[in-house]
């Protein structure tokens, strides 16, 4: 961010700058038909497709529920958080490539506001995405046994996951300043992050090495925390572990992004 951590201090500009950044990102979001497609149509396709393809896995012994939709809805919420983080990463790259970020950094805007504005944007769009998947899932017959409390926890977990991943991809965009490395990394990691978690299938049905890999995958911790909210009730153990892992994940992401941001001009 072209040097200096200076720019903190004043609270009023800090809040104002944060809201300005957030508003701008949200305006782009509401304006582009592409985002409407991604956020509305995409979950619909996933839900219709996967609930058909994986219908019969529920007949396997010990499968936690008789409805794959019921099992998959929370997994999908987490899966889409991973996908949407990629989109936000690319949106940041756009700002870098067209020189918008550079122009913004020459103004006295608070540097941390720019990061926080993006973090809030990820959270807001996360809420929207959760709402869309829930509405479609409920319409198709799914239930959420923990009600409003479960929804709130889901939103927190999904936002933390998204903030961490968006920050890391944003840091990469800031360093690479080119689209190819971002495409490469996002292609490379997205599917493994999803498939090496229990988003689509219960862990006990996967080989040992996959189960080991899941232990190192933040996506899996999100799924483990969220799924019981839909199926059985609050699993405070899973929620606690999930929160610890994902807060660490998000904080690590922000620290790395902040570092990349500070060195952007050099």
């Amino acid at each position, binding site marked *: 961010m072209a040097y200096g951590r200076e720019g903190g201090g004043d609270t009023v500009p800090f809040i104002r*700058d944060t809201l300005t950044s957030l508003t701008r990102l949200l305006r782009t979001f509401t304006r582009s038909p592409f985002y409407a497609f991604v956020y509305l149509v995409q979950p619909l396709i996933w839900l219709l497709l996967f609930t058909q393809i994986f219908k019969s896995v529920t007949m396997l012994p010990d499968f936690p529920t008789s409805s794959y939709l019921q099992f998959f809805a929370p997994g999908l919420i987490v899966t889409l958080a991973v996908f949407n983080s990629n989109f936000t990463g690319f949106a940041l790259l756009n700002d870098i*490539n*067209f*020189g*918008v970020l*550079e*122009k913004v950094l020459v*103004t006295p805007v608070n540097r941390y506001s720019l990061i926080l504005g993006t973090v809030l944007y990820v959270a807001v769009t996360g809420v929207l995405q959760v709402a869309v998947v829930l509405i479609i899932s409920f319409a198709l017959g799914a239930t959420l046994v923990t009600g409003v409390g479960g929804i709130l926890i889901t939103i927190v977990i999904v936002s933390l996951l998204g903030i961490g991943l968006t920050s890391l991809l944003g840091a990469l965009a800031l360093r690479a300043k080119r689209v190819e490395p971002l495409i490469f990394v996002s292609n490379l990691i997205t599917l493994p992050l999803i498939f090496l978690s229990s988003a689509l299938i219960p862990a006990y049905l996967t080989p040992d090495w996959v189960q080991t890999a899941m232990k190192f995958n933040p996506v899996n911790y999100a799924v483990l925390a969220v799924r019981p909210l839909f199926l059985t009730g609050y699993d405070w153990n899973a929620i606690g572990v999930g929160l610890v892992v994902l807060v660490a994940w998000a904080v690590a992401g922000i620290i790395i992004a902040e570092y990349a941001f500070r060195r952007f*001009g050099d």
Partner: protein
Amino acid sequence: MLVKNIIETFNLTKVYNEKIRAVDDLNLAIKEGEIFGLLGPNGAGKTTTIRMLVTLTRPTSGRAVIDGHDLAKEARTIREIIGYSSQQAGVDDNAKGREYLGLFGNYYHLDGQTIKRRIDEVLVLMELEDAADRLISTYSGGMQKRLEIATALINKPKILILDEPTLGLDVQTRLRIWDYIREINKEDTTILLTTHYLEETDKLCDRVAIVDHGKIVALGTPDELKSEISGDAVTLTLPLQDPDQHAKTIERAKQLLSSQTYVRDVVARDDGLNVYVDEGSSAVPQILRVLEEADVKAEGITLTRPSLDDVFVKYTGRTLREEKGTGRGALGGVRPRGGR
């Protein structure tokens, strides 16, 4: 009248990858109220210099003082008083003109009333009133550039810094941008711009620094610089032979011509010679005769009034005109020039 220096640099240096000295001990003093041009080829260090002055890139060593504020310690204050127009597009396709200007008004922490007023003012100045409420994606290239410059004016900066303001624009748009820059300058805004267009410096700038390899090689008003080379300039191009032979031929021709009484100065280029004479029309036939007697073939010969390009050739042995100038790398002028 004593005019104060609004930008001063002291041995300002930027080293990339521990070896490329993009800006090399640069000492620069820009006076309040002037239009100052940094002229040089791509990779000369112009963009890097500017990026340091606008607080985007940290200097490796050296100092700069802008309007009395130390660049290293008071970046935040400096950001309040400068406007920066970059070489890149610098606009967001998804926004409307007015919204995009408003974004910068907010980032400059102006109050709502002032933002509204300034948006209207800069829209009038850059003649964009009619397009203000359209999406930027519908703008032509020239309009986008004007809007981009408008964003740099929203805070009514004391200093406007422009990096290649007319790069890639058609001639007509270029002339209009020059008019805008003069207009902005009239409102007591000091202007620092980089360019590799000779006409731009000649027509627009009060003073020029010619920059090469991160150093200033010449400094003065365009007229002062041109008067260093008096008379007419005869530009000779010699046919390319094998490199050794070529250099020898050029050197031989240089010695021959230097000894002629009507020749004031001879400067060798990679592909020929610039010969400076008092009276071009009578000198050309004589020059050709001398060359013919020495069995040196000239492939091309042109006669011109001295230009800033001749000044550039004098100090660097290369011409600026061969620069096609399409470089728009994300790192600005970092790329080292070939054949250094």
